[in-house]
């Protein structure tokens, strides 16, 4: 307690305890001094007046929390006291001194002020934050809450609110959730924490708010919650903002354009779905692990970093084409990109950049296609034009302007009726335009009018209506037209050619029907499509019956398979068809026909038609048969008397020899030789006849070649004593062939060698083995053959003359027959000769057939 005694009107400090002096900041020097003098800081403050009033009135003065400002340590400081000024009176009741007592409650006041300040600040903060406080007594179910809280729950400020009232304000859909949260919080088994967001509805149901309530329950020693307090914050705007944010995020996420946000270093913060899909980022990938650098090509990245980033305007951003890259496929994707800088709202500092990008590929493709289309239209040989709905020409291509004889630059805005003929113009107005407007398109023939020559140009035109995309209103029409003049001219030329062709066909038919043979044609599949009248003369049925495959019904059953096989082979291969078969005639008899056909092909070698002939060879066949018979008969008839003559000659020779008449025996021996010669001549003639008619028959046997040669040499040697036949047989083996005929060839060569070397005394026969063929040569040392005649010796009837001009005997058939035999046996025959020195005749035969 601060105590001081002031005496007299001047308030001289008679006594002051230490506390007072400490309070004043004075020492004992102030004792005896007037208060005003001792503590000059009191000047200006009400204390002196109050003391004066107490001295004068003699009434006590009490003040609570009286504020005093004093100089302490050269600083003015404020203090609070509960002070009393009590007058001290004398016996007369006159005041002669005042006792000043004061209790320094500066700390208390200060603390209280601090608390008040704090509460005030708290209140301001809570008010500013929209947070209310509540305090629930769970035991008594009473609630204390501030104004803000009341507002949140829709209660007027002065209402007494019970806990049940609070519950009524909770949104029906949230009541259960709140109840559970409260129950959990005041459960002594929990920590007592409470944190929930729910809706409140004002009593008048005019306001719906979202509140975020947080609080804690406090438990007494009986583990009962005695206090449950906390805050309630209006988060309605926050919820709305979050909803808007979610809606916005949904919009951005699902936007078709690529949207992303990155910090200024290029590190990604966000990518929407379109962006992920475009650039190859999995929906679940955390984009913050990626850098925007992953989505550029090297060169493009350099351009963006060094040029584009620097060009982003803080207000307008940057727009342009950037080539982004899909990080998975590495496909480069041209995009129209807008960059914008993102600034911190508070500081204005650039904290990142956002980007939207539109995939330009389709647009570029469409543009390119449009360009291509425009080029195609422009260079098209067809007339292309484009007019507004009134018919004013907006575009005409090169071909079009040429067709109507006007420069395309001059035709702009010319009405199309100007370059259509009068008749076409009327048709366009009255018929075509209504149909075009109704159906969207029209096609047909029209006439253009050449602007210089006045020529009418027939065209085939197609028109299409163009409509405004949004309103579907017709705004223009496009047309494409083909000049019909070439077509018309071509048709006329075609008609003329067809007429000519028709005439040619008739002439051909006439020719075909005139020839003596049956003439026919077939399609590539072999079905006959034409057969001349000759067929009808001999075949049963009509020509129509024969067409297609009808002709085959007249085939001889024995020839059917062979005929079809051969025909099919020709149809397949295109090789000429040639066969003899029998067909039934009108009388039901079969006649032989030689049927031949050739294929006509196009420039690619494909068969387009078969041209065939049937020649009646039945008579010829009969003749051949007769000739065959005759040959056989002639052979028999000629040889029979020769046989008899020979037999008689040999019998007579034998008889003469037996009788010792050698002279006559020799004569008969000579006769026998002549008979042999006659027989050979007959045989040669018959062989030649058979060769010429293709009737020479051959056997085929396997025989020892050397044995055969030696037989022939022995036989021929017997006829010539003069010429020694020497042999050098280097082939030792067997060959397959007609042994008789080969003997005939060797005999012919040996007899020729003897005949044509009258002055020589030897003949050499030698063979050589050439692997797959055996060669036999007969060498003579006779008259030889000149080089220019060597090829002729194998011709029929050819004979060689000697230098002595004598004609050698013989028909000249031997070598011809030998040549034909060797050829038939698939061999070769030739001669090497030097005139005057001799000849070597050789033939070679395959060892195996």
């Amino acid at each position, binding site marked *: 307690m601060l105590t001081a005694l002031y005496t007299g009107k001047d308030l001289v400090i008679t006594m002051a305890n230490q506390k007072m002096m400490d309070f004043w900041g004075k020492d004992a020097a102030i004792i005896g001094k007037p208060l005003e003098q001792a503590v000059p800081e009191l000047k200006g403050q009400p204390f002196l007046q109050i003391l004066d009033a107490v001295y004068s009135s003699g009434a006590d003065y009490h003040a609570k929390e009286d504020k005093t400002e004093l100089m302490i340590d050269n600083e003015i400081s404020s203090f609070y006291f509960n002070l009393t000024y009590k007058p001290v009176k004398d016996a007369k009741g006159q005041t002669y001194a005042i006792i000043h007592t004061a209790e320094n409650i500066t700390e208390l006041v200060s603390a209280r002020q601090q608390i008040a300040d704090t509460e005030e600040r708290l209140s301001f903060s809570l008010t500013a934050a929209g947070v209310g406080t509540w305090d629930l007594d769970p035991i008594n179910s009473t609630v204390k809450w501030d104004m803000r809280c009341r507002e949140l729950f829709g209660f007027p400020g002065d209402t007494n609110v019970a806990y049940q009232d609070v519950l009524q304000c909770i949104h029906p859909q949230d009541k259960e959730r709140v109840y559970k949260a409260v129950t959990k919080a005041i459960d002594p088994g929990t920590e007592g924490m409470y944190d929930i967001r729910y809706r409140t509805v004002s009593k008048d149901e005019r306001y719906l708010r979202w509140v975020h309530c947080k609080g804690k329950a406090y438990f007494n020693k009986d583990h009962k919650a005695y206090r449950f307090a906390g805050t309630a914050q209006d988060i309605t705007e926050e919820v709305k903002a979050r909803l808007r944010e979610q809606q916005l995020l949904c919009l951005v996420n699902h936007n078709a354009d690529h949207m992303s946000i990155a910090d200024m270093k290029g590190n990604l913060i966000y990518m929407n779905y379109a962006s992920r899909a475009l650039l190859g980022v999995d929906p679940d990938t955390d984009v913050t692990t990626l850098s925007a650098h992953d989505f550029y090509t090297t060169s493009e990245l350099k351009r963006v970093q060094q040029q584009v980033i620097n060009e982003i305007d803080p207000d307008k951003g940057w727009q342009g084409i950037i080539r982004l890259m899909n990080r998975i496929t590495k496909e480069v994707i041209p995009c129209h990109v807008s960059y914008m800088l993102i600034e911190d709202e508070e500081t204005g500092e650039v904290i990142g950049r956002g980007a939207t990008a539109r995939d330009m590929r389709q647009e570029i493709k469409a543009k390119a296609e449009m360009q291509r289309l425009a080029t195609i239209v422009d260079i098209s040989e067809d007339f292309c034009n484009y007019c507004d709905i009134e018919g004013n020409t907006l575009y005409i291509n090169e071909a079009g302007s040429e067709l109507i004889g006007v420069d395309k630059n001059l035709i702009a805005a010319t009405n199309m009726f100007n370059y259509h003929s009068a008749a076409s113009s009327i048709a366009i107005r009255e018929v075509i335009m209504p149909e075009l407007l109704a159906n969207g398109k029209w096609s047909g023939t029209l006439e253009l009018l050449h602007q210089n020559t006045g020529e009418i140009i027939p065209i085939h035109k197609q028109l299409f209506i163009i409509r405004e995309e949004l309103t579907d209103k017709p705004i223009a029409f496009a047309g494409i037209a083909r000049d019909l003049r070439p077509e018309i001219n071509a048709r006329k030329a075609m008609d003329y050619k067809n007429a000519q062709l028709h005439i040619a066909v008739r002439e051909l038919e006439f020719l075909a029907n005139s020839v003596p043979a049956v003439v026919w044609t077939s399609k590539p599949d072999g079905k006959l499509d034409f057969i001349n009248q000759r067929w009808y003369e001999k075949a049963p049925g009509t020509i129509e019956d024969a067409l297609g495959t009808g002709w085959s019904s007249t085939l001889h059953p024995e020839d059917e398979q062979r005929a079809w096989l051969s025909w099919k082979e020709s149809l397949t291969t295109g090789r000429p068809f040639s066969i003899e078969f029998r067909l039934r005639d009108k009388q039901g008899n079969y006649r032989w026909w030689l049927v031949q056909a050739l294929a006509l092909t196009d420039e690619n070698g494909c068969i387009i038609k078969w041209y065939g002939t049937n020649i009646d060879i039945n008579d010829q066949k009969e003749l051949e048969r007769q000739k065959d018979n005759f040959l056989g008969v002639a052979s*028999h008839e000629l040889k029979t008397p020769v*046989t*008899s003559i020979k*037999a008689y000659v040999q019998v007579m020779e034998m008889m003469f020899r037996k009788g010792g008449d050698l002279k006559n025996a020799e004569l008969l021996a000579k006769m026998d030789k002549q008979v042999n010669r006659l027989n050979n001549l007959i045989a040669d003639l018959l062989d030649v006849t058979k060769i010429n008619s293709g009737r020479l028959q051959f056997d085929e046997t396997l025989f020892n070649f050397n044995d055969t040669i030696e037989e022939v040499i022995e036989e021929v040697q017997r006829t010539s004593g003069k010429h020694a036949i020497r042999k050098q047989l280097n082939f030792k083996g067997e060959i397959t062939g007609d042994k008789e005929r080969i003997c005939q060839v060797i005999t012919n060569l040996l007899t020729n060698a003897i005949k044509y070397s009258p002055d020589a005394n030897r003949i050499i026969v030698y063979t050589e083995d050439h692997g797959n063929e055996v060669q036999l040569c007969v060498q003579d040392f006779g008259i030889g053959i000149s080089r220019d005649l060597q090829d002729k010796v194998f011709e029929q009837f050819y004979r060689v003359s000697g230098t002595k001009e004598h004609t050698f005997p013989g028909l000249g058939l031997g070598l011809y027959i030998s040549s034909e035999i060797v050829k038939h046996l698939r061999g070769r025959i030739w001669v090497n000769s030097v005139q005057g020195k001799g000849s070597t005749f050789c033939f070679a035969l395959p060892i195996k057939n």
Partner: protein
Amino acid sequence: MELRTKKIFIADDDEAIVDATSMMLEMVGYEVSYTLNGANIQSAISKKPDLVLLDIWMSGIDGRDVCKAIKANPQTKDIPVLMLSASRDIRESALESGADDFLAKPFDMNVLLNKIDVLLN
């Protein structure tokens, strides 16, 4: 020449050939019988000659058919048959009909005698 006592039957419709051949064969010791008529062949062959000289074309009769019949008959199948013909092209079919050998006309008598000798021995 060796004396032969074998019987040779000649079937040929040419009298001169038969005459000349018979003379030659008899000169060398064969007993010869013949027919100019193909129709008597069967009865003549039934007398079992040692060898048959058979012409192919015999006035309406084909010697190959006769040969087949001879060879088909167990009584006569072992009698050698030498077929004769003016056409040597017919050799193959002659042998196919069962003939033991073939000789083209006109033939050398020595060749004929050699062939007969071979067939009989």
